[in-house]
């Protein structure tokens, strides 16, 4: 059994390995190193991070006298990224994030909310340490303990795509609760299941205290680097912590490597707004020295696995555990913060710089979003799809679009101008945003190349996951330019990016039209084109020409045998830009905006539509498509019969909806609110932003509480509202068949329901 070791404070030692985890403690920054042999070493660096204050010089001197702690000093830093020279600011060392926050608030009050501006307040110390030391998580390093702290030697590179991984020990932890109903913190532990290295261990004997003791003992013995849990943040760890309190074992419930017990947090998760939608994030459980991954609450893990998390951690310089439980935007921001710190630019605590003043006429021209060309509703034969690869990040990089570079003060006469708006772009410096995405774009391209080159499926999957993770970050990079809380974002840079994107798409469309192609549809970064008698090669040649003209990578997605563009449900003569389905020459089906892609549609409907599309996908062209329509309606009939005869599995009937507000704030009895209230009654904590699953049991019932049943309360005796599910089925089927004159009523008739 490998043991964890620690450097003694007196002797000078060194270790080589991967940076597994790091976090601040009273005596400095703690860093866990995983060696090639599989051991873990705990290092401590006597390092403190600092917050900074800007303001009038005499005010800063006055503040320094008031604070009067060790290390307070005046320093020169760039207060804004666009500043031509450094300003004098006050540096105040702090011990931890909480102290930083409290001190910052006191300074604001002391300055009457006007005299001081604060910086570097809410940057996590672990990230700041990585930026300052120029290292990154899962980097292979050599660390040497010196009398004045740790000395780092990086033996790895962020640019590396075939980097070596540490020998990680992974463990999955699950807990069964002794209840038939919804598990509560007051219910006893029934059993604990551990999976380690393919071996399953059940802890079920003895009383609850015995189970907890065995769990702690096993964790210590197995000494995993990563602990996976299903819903560990929201339930499993808070539950274990509360059971430990109940059994007077809370001081001994040690799951992390640090030796400190798992604490019950009284805090609640966070509800936050993103793109107009309320989301919920539970409070993360941090295991010091190990990595906890909540498999249900980590979006990036669900999509890209551990490999994706590690790739993001390495490239964005943010600990893996934080990558797994924070938003993608936070990870992306970390990459920007690194560049700022390396350039001596301070990170504003709050974003207070507003949009530049513009006339209403300017706004009319500027605020127009992406390019679109409305499709003609209906079926089209032999249409090719060309997509610009990472168009927006590419433009941000190539055109140097960042908050501090668009409409910069230093180059008003710059020859680099934003189309339509004529905004100047800085010629003197490369922006923080372009610099932070450069490596991401480069690596994404490299992974794509590698995917095409390797034959080993596991290796291909690894590259695919890393590339997918980078794609998430890149998608976010553009959105963050206009995001209200982005540290280095600005709406003018966002507007400029959109203007360049519109120009690019227009240029490409015109080029295609000049070559005799017809633009069937275009949106944001994609074009759908057709030309009578055109071969695949003709489309590829066109792609190459667009690439030469725009100098932006563009991919050939394929030629559709046929593609159907769908209309609005409310106004049948109007197309919806993002609602279509089609089948490529190789048989791949691509669909957007229909039931197969929506999260609020029950599985039974999704399956039916998918099966209908499979039937239609056999059609070689539009006339073949028409001939297969009766067969697809037969599929619908099959599902109608199954619903009517109640042969559908209950899980296939669950509908998932988002809570856009707190349960008590709902004024109307919408279905998700009814289900949420049922859960609240069962003492389950429900917050705005969470998703609620339920079954419709009787949508017309005059008592709203009887209309649906929350998924957690469903059992085999639960009935379901056949008519309501049939309505959902017909409406989804009518959506895909709408261009051919079908309505939900027509389909009811066709399936003998009318």
């Amino acid at each position, binding site marked *: 059994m490998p043991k964890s070791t620690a450097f003694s404070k007196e002797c000078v030692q060194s270790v080589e390995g991967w940076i597994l985890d790091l976090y601040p403690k009273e005596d400095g920054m703690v860093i866990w190193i995983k060696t090639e042999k599989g051991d873990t070493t705990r290092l401590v660096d006597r390092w403190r991070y600092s917050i900074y204050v800007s303001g009038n010089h005499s005010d800063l001197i006055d503040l320094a006298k008031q604070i009067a702690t060790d290390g307070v000093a005046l320093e020169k830093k760039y207060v804004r990224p666009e500043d031509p020279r450094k300003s004098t600011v006050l540096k105040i060392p702090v011990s931890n994030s909480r102290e930083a926050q409290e001190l910052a608030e006191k300074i604001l009050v002391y300055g009457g909310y006007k005299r001081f501006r604060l910086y570097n307040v809410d940057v996590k110390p672990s990230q700041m340490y990585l930026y300052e030391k120029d290292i990154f998580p899962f980097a292979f390093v050599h660390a040497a303990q010196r009398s004045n702290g740790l000395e780092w030697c990086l033996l790895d590179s962020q640019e590396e795509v075939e980097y070596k991984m540490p020998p990680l020990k992974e463990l999955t932890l699950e807990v069964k609760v002794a209840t038939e109903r919804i598990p509560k913190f007051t219910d006893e532990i029934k059993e604990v299941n551990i999976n380690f290295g393919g071996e399953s261990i059940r802890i079920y004997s003895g009383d609850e205290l015995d189970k907890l003791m065995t769990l702690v003992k096993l964790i210590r013995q197995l000494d995993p680097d990563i602990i996976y849990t299903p819903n560990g943040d929201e339930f499993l760890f808070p539950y274990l912590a509360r059971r430990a309190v109940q059994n007077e074992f809370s001081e001994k419930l040690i799951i992390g490597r640090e030796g400190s017990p798992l604490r019950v947090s009284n805090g609640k998760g*966070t509800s936050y707004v993103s793109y107009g939608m309320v989301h919920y994030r539970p409070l993360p459980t941090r295991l010091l020295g190990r990595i906890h991954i909540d498999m249900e609450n980590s979006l990036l893990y669900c999509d890209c696995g551990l490999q994706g998390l590690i790739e993001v951690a390495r490239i964005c310089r943010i600990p893996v555990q934080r990558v797994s439980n924070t938003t993608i935007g936070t990870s992306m921001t970390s990459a920007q913060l690194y560049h700022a710190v390396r350039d001596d630019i301070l990170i504003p605590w709050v*974003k207070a710089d*507003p*949009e530049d003043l513009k006339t209403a006429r300017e706004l009319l021209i500027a605020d127009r979003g992406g390019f679109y060309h409305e499709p003609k509703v209906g079926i089209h034969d032999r249409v090719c799809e060309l997509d610009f690869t990472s168009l927006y990040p590419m433009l941000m990089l190539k055109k140097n679009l960042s908050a501090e570079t668009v409409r910069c003060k230093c180059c008003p006469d710059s020859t680099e101008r934003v189309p339509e708006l004529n905004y100047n772009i800085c010629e003197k410096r490369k922006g923080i945003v372009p610099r932070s995405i450069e490596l991401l774009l480069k690596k994404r391209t490299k992974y794509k190349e590698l995917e095409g080159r390797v034959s080993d499926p596991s290796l291909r999957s690894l590259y695919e996951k890393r590339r997918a993770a980078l794609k998430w970050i890149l998608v976010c990079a553009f959105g963050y330019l206009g995001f209200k*809380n982005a540290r280095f974002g600005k709406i003018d840079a966002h507007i400029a990016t959109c203007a360049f994107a519109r120009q690019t798409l227009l240029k490409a469309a015109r080029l295609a039209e000049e070559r005799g192609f017809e633009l069937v549809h275009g949106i944001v970064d994609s074009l759908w084109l057709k030309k009578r008698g055109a071969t695949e090669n003709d489309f590829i040649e066109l792609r190459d020409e667009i690439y030469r003209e725009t100098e932006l990578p563009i991919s050939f997605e394929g030629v559709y045998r046929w593609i159907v563009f769908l209309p609005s449900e409310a106004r049948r003569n109007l197309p919806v830009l993002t609602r279509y389905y089609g089948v490529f020459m190789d048989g791949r089906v691509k669909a957007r905006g229909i039931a197969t892609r929506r999260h609020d549609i029950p599985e039974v409907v999704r399956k039916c539509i998918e099966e209908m599309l499979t039937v239609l996908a056999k059609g070689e062209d539009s006339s073949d498509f028409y001939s297969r329509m009766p067969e697809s309606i037969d599929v619908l009939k099959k599902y109608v019969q199954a619903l009517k005869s109640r042969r559908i599995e209950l899980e296939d009937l669950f509908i998932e909806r988002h809570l856009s507000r707190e349960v008590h704030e709902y004024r109307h009895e919408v279905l998700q609110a009814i289900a949420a209230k049922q859960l609240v009654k069962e003492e389950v904590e429900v917050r705005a932003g969470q998703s609620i699953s339920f079954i419709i049991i009787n949508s017309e019932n005059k008592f709203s509480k009887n209309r649906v049943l929350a998924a957690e309360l469903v059992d085999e005796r639960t009935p379901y509202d056949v008519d309501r599910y049939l309505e959902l089925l017909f409406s989804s089927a009518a959506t895909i068949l709408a261009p051919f004159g079908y309505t939900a009523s027509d389909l009811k008739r066709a399936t003998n329901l009318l």
Partner: protein
Amino acid sequence: MFDSLFGKLNLGHLVFLHGTQYCLALSELLCVQAQLALAEGGLESKAIFIDGGNTFDPCLVAEYAEQLSLDSDKVLENIFVSRAFTYHQLTSLIANNLKPWIDRLKIKLAVISNILEPYSYPDVAGKQSSIFFKVALNSLVTTIKEKKIVAIVTSLNDRYFHKKSFFKQIAYHSDIIAKLEDYGDLTTAILEKHSVSALITLVSSLRL
């Protein structure tokens, strides 16, 4: 139209409009009317529109201009817009930028649209946003009096009134408060406060 509903607007007045989307339409219309000559009921002035809710619609403004037989391009050139996406930005716009802009552009009308929204997002810290709101409002009141301008402050969504203290603070400083409500195709304007006749609350149901 505003004059006929709520009485004449005087320089140095703070007007608070709350309720439906019509507050937005009305404030945009006032930005157009402000450009008319004094004899035509205008202020012979350009306007500033500080947008706290990202709701400013230049197309609608152009339509209003055309309805008043004005050159829409010119009208749009004379309205200056800045959007605030956080309460810090809105505070900064009101407390730091507004006064120099008024001087530079010789503005007599400033609209602060959706003023409560950035301070009321579910993810902002209550105590801090309250303090910054106070800073912004006090600064606005001082600017109005000092620069002798008319300021229209709007809140388009009454659900933000759970921040009652914000509402009370605006109400305290406002010379005119009007609530606009929609009933089908009928919009009702309720005059809730008027500085001249402070205790008179007129309820005027008008087809606007």
